[in-house]
């Protein structure tokens, strides 16, 4: 537990710490007035639709307590769905229902929940239980992702997603996040999900970590990460880079899922993306951040130009 590494060594490797992220990047580049664009998922969704960014379908919104029962009308037409708080953070308060049948609503874990559970969950969302600062919230009902068979056997009990960090519109570092039994179907690395570093240039896996330590095989399915490659990588990078114009934030994390039919969809944006991506990639972010800072940003580069630039400069 108490073995430390020299801070100079970390600095040499270009690893960014939390204080530097907060002060030198988030604080300096992200205008606080723009935070609602990413903190309010309903707003994000509407912005994305306006900007032509692909997102999962919006099935409905529950704004008031008396509307709660209406959710079942919406749900009747859709088998699987996902209920999330518009202002939730860190994946809190997301209820994923895979299918409905006579037993009730089946969660991703295979457990059934009764109708009352769904009502209670929405009630909690409306009361602000999961939102930042406990503000009153709305519940967003989204279509379920039919996740791409590429990731079969890689993600256990949960949807895999790809986190891409975008700085000044340039996709800069990426990782694939795979749920494990330990993470209880969640894709957050600190809860035990596996992070697989992805080469920006090729979309191929570099290395994988769980609990900040390197691993080579998925702990639950024992599948090797060595030949993981993300299909449609260019489209994914373009989608991620487009989130810069859409949100206005200069330092940004985009969580993208790969849908079987619709291709890459932006699931969530994050104005304060974590630092575990460095561990998954086995490298620090600072050299790339500093590189992008030296680019002359007065001439506005198109999304395609930025992606091409990133692919040629950030290959490992």
């Amino acid at each position, binding site marked *: 537990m108490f073995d430390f590494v020299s801070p100079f060594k970390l600095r040499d490797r270009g*690893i960014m710490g939390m204080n530097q992220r907060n002060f030198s990047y988030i604080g300096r580049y992200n205008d606080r007035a723009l935070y609602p664009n990413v903190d309010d998922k309903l707003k994000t969704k509407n912005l994305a639709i306006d900007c032509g960014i692909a997102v999962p379908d919006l099935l409905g919104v529950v704004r008031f307590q008396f509307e709660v029962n209406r959710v079942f009308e919406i749900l009747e037409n859709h088998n699987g769905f996902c209920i999330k708080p518009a202002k939730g953070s860190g994946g809190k308060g997301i209820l994923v229902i895979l299918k409905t049948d006579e037993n009730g609503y089946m969660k991703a874990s295979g457990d059934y929940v009764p109708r009352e559970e769904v009502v209670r969950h929405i009630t909690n969302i409306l009361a602000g239980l999961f939102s930042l600062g406990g503000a009153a919230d709305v519940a967003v009902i989204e279509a379920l992702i039919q996740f791409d068979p590429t990731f079969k056997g890689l993600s256990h009990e949960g949807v895999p997603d790809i986190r891409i960090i975008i700085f000044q519109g340039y996709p800069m570092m990426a990782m694939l996040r795979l749920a494990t039994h330990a993470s209880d179907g969640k894709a957050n690395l600190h809860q035990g999900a596996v992070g697989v570093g992805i080469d920006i240039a090729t979309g191929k896996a570099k290395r994988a970590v769980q609990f900040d330590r390197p691993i080579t095989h998925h702990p639950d399915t024992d599948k090797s990460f060595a030949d993981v490659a993300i299909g449609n990588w260019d489209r994914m990078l373009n989608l991620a880079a487009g989130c810069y114009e859409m949100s206005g934030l200069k330092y940004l994390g985009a969580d993208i899922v790969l849908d079987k039919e619709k291709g890459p969809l932006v699931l969530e944006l994050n104005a304060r993306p974590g630092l575990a991506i*460095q561990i998954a990639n086995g490298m620090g972010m600072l050299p790339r951040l500093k590189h992008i800072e030296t680019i002359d940003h007065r001439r506005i580069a198109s999304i395609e130009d930025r992606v091409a630039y990133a692919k040629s400069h950030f290959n490992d």
Partner: protein
Amino acid sequence: MTSRTPFLIIVFALIVTGISSIYYRHVEMGVPLTAGEQIDIWQIEAEIEFTGKNEPVNAKLTLPKDPKFELVDEFTASPAYGVHVFREEDKSEVVWSKRQVQGKQTLYYQASYKRAINPEKEPAPAEDIVADVWSEPYQSSAQTLLNHAIEKSGNQQFLVLQVLNIIKTDNQNVALLLSKYSKTEVFVQLMQMAKVPAMMVSGLVLEDSRRNQQLIPLLKVYINNGWQMFNVENGELGNDLPILVWQQNSPSLLDLVGGRNSKVVFSISHSTQSALQEANSSATKGDFFDFGLYHLPIDEQNLFKGILLLPIGALVVVFLRVIIGLKCSGTFMPILIATSFIQTELINGVVGFLLIVSVGLVIRSYLSHLNLLLVSRISAVVIVVIGIIVLFTVVAFRMGLTEALTITFFPMIIMAWTIERMSILWEEEGGKEVLIQGGGSLIVAVIAYLMMDNYLIRHWAFNFLGVHALIMAAVLLMGQYTGYRLLELHRFKPLAED
């Protein structure tokens, strides 16, 4: 980065303000650096006795004027007399007066003195000294003695010692002079003839529980750029007993009109007093650095003693989060928990906190099944927490565990909110995260408590408000710290090793 300059100016200004205010409070006002420091207070009572001649009386007592001592308070006791205290630049006196006085009278003047914190330096004497010329044969005897002494001494200091020695001998010139003058007078005359500034003063030896004391004649000689005192009549001065100079350049101690057989005697007693209390009570109102905190009612002062500890807690929280990287839930909550620990004492506090939170978590998990709205659920948790506290208190009292009674000091809302946050965390992130964040909060709270409970830190936080400017500067500086947190050195270790 131009935006850094004003920031650095603010930080610099805070540091300067902080340090200068601490310096001022300590050096100028004498607020001690440690709590419980005591200072010596000398209480001196002058008792004046005389017999009235059935006519108006005017009694003037010269008051001490010694830059090495500071007056703490004074009062006079003298029935049916009109009393005035005159304080002037070069002379202070108290005057009693009465229209018609007959028989034996006793007047009292009482004053408390303490050593001056930073005594004013006594002015250097005037350059040109003109010695009186004594009548013969005294003048020539004095001259002989002086020549003798000058011959045997290299500088002023040795001259003074030499003269002191000569006066003690039974030299015939000395004997002649002493037949007319006192030793002190002879000494002053010799010094003045040698152009060494010297004067006669009267002082009081401050010794505890002495009664019927008289002023003793003393000599002040200016050597090596400072006044030095000598007792010529009775030899050396004891270094251990302080001497209060009462009279200097003033004609008489007591100037009495309308009475006879006058006598002044002194009694002295020594006491100690809290240096802090003394410094604050002597602080002039409207003092720039004290902001009137010490003139508030005691209740409010005690309130501020608590509030002024919060910045210490905040500093601890900022340090542990920014520099160490400890996770805790909320920023202010650990400080509030720490303030409750101050009420409950540490062990009782931690045990009570853990008991209430864990029982609360269990009950709250049941409440969550009741499908309540959030607001009513939190309210229900508050009520349950009160119930738990009542239950624990009653059970503990029955079992004779009086320490557990301090559990009642926990602020209800903090406990309820902690339970609420922890149970959300439990549902969302699992028990492990509850342990990490809850444990982190508890560690931060305990460290903050240990700092806030330290008697020295408490003393500083309340008595040196400049400390808060320094804390502010430290918090601002840490807000600019972009280096690694200590725990990140562990977290990113695998990255540095490949």
